[in-house]
């Protein structure tokens, strides 16, 4: 992981150097198109772009996280496309993966920053205790997460927030958020931030975003949460193979009923697919083997903000997050009390009204004639 000069060679050159033929490169591009959720017909354009793409320097920062995101990225079988992509980038600093430790590691980071000002990418996983929090909640080499993030992004080309903690605060940011955890986009306002959410994100999505950056030299189209539209543009529900059962009204009611065995829709078991935007339904997990819904479990909505606080994982999407029958009863009881008080007042008023009514006499009527 020693610092090389990453901008010397193009991606095409470095692949060719590794003995990859043009046909192999075409195959690589076809797979990359698939990974980037682009149509296969884009492969030649990708090939042309990648031929000329420069290898960027990447600094990977890990803050309040569980390493799940890194695990996700590295648990793919080698040599995969992801490896190829990672090999051609220059990963100059990664808390978890780097061999170096202590001052040497920090030195690598500072060197990468100094060598490529304005050009390096910063990848962040984990949330950050905000500037108003006690910095001691999470530190690296004596630097608070906040200080390290701000220092590192200062001259970065862009920041890729990986995982729901970095994108939305995630588990550390869940109620009551003791560390005052914040997301990258809460803190970084003057640099482009790409969010690759998920707990963890699909590994191909992480590399797909990097590949996109390499291929086109710019950031992909993003949604309102700064997530790449290519992967987060459609909901789980819209791409779910069980969707026809939703439309037909066929639902599993428990995890082992007839409907569950027949693979019916998991909506009633609390599936958050309708409100969740991610690519699981098409890209799947474990090298495309399967994904949660296919395994018979409802989507938890892990790529969405505050998914830990969005009510029970097994509560239907339409169910309120906090109210219960008890609350309704309580409101009803309050209503009965207030109602009784208002009613008593009304009763009094009626009595007063009747008492205030004055009988009409024939003389009074005659006076009107």
């Amino acid at each position: 992981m020693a610092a090389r000069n990453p901008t010397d060679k193009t991606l095409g050159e470095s692949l060719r150097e590794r003995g990859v033929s043009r046909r192999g490169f075409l195959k690589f591009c076809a797979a990359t198109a698939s990974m980037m959720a682009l149509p296969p017909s884009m492969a030649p354009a990708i090939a042309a772009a990648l031929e000329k793409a420069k290898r960027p320097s990447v600094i990977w920062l890990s803050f309040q996280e569980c390493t799940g995101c890194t695990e996700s990225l590295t648990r793919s079988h080698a040599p995969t496309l992801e490896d190829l992509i990672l090999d051609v980038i220059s990963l100059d600093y990664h808390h978890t993966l780097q061999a170096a430790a202590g001052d040497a590691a920090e030195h690598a980071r500072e060197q990468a920053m100094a060598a490529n000002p304005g050009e390096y990418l910063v990848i962040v996983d984990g949330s950050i205790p905000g500037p108003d929090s006690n910095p001691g909640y999470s530190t690296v080499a004596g630097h608070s997460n906040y200080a390290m993030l701000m220092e590192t992004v200062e001259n970065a080309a862009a920041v890729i927030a990986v995982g729901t903690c970095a994108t939305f605060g995630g588990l550390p940011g869940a109620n009551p958020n003791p560390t005052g955890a914040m997301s990258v986009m809460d803190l970084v306002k003057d640099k482009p931030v790409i969010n690759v959410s998920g707990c963890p994100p699909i590994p191909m999505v992480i590399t797909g975003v990097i590949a996109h950056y390499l291929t086109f030299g710019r950031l992909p189209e993003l949604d309102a949460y700064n997530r790449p539209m290519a992967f987060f543009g459609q909901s789980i529900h819209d791409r779910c193979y069980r969707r026809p059962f939703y439309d037909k009204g066929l639902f599993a009611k428990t995890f082992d009923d007839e409907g569950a065995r027949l693979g019916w829709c998991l909506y009633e078991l609390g599936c958050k697919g309708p409100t969740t935007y991610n690519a699981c339904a098409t890209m799947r997990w474990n090298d495309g083997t399967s994904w949660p819904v296919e395994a018979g479990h409802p989507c938890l909505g892990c790529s969405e903000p505050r998914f830990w606080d969005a009510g029970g994982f097994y509560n239907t999407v339409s169910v309120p997050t906090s109210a219960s029958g008890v609350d309704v009863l309580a409101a009803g009881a309050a209503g009965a009390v207030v109602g009784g008080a208002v009613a008593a007042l009304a009763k009094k008023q009626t009595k007063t009204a009747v008492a205030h009514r004055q009988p009409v006499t024939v003389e009074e009527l005659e006076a009107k004639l």
Partner: protein
Amino acid sequence: MSGSMEFLLWTKGPMFNIAIAIFAIGLLVRIAEIFVLGRKKNFAEARAGEWGPGFRTMLTRTVADPGTFQRAPFNVVVGWVWHIGFLIALLLFLPHIALIESLTGLSWPALPNPVISLVTSVTLVALIATLVHRMTHPVKKRISTVEDYVVWAVVFAVVLTGWLAYYRLVNPYPLVLGMHILSAEIMLILLPFTKLTHIFTTFIARWYNGAAFGRKGVQS
């Protein structure tokens, strides 16, 4: 940071609690106001009991008498269509049943979603028809108040956002789902303070009507 998902969670959380509390308190106040006022003792010798005719009128008023139907077929049919459509969508759509079940523990079978979506589309058209009717028919125009139009807008918003959410025509989906839930909550909040109360009080009114006529020997 405040995006569509945060908005959805707000409507499903704090706002829902506020709405349900105002609704429950307001409605009970309304109903208490009616029953505490009560009726004076009636000394006139009755021809028949009050309960039977009262309950019968509670049901029979749902259908217009043939003469009224002939004179105001549009009003009657359109009113029927959208009321029934609204009730079907409200009570027989799976997500709504799940919501009711979470609050009350009661549940029942749902209709297939395509049926609900069709019914909802018809309801929307009927609601637009009621608005046009209200704005053009001389009687309705004359007696309509600001409240009538506000209530129409809220009811229409509930159905429209529900329809948009079902077809996922607004992106992102949490935004439209949140708008649907919020408009339903606005409807709940307004319910005890507007003519929407009739959802509950019409049965009291019909009972009083049926009872008053019934004791005189007429099934009203």
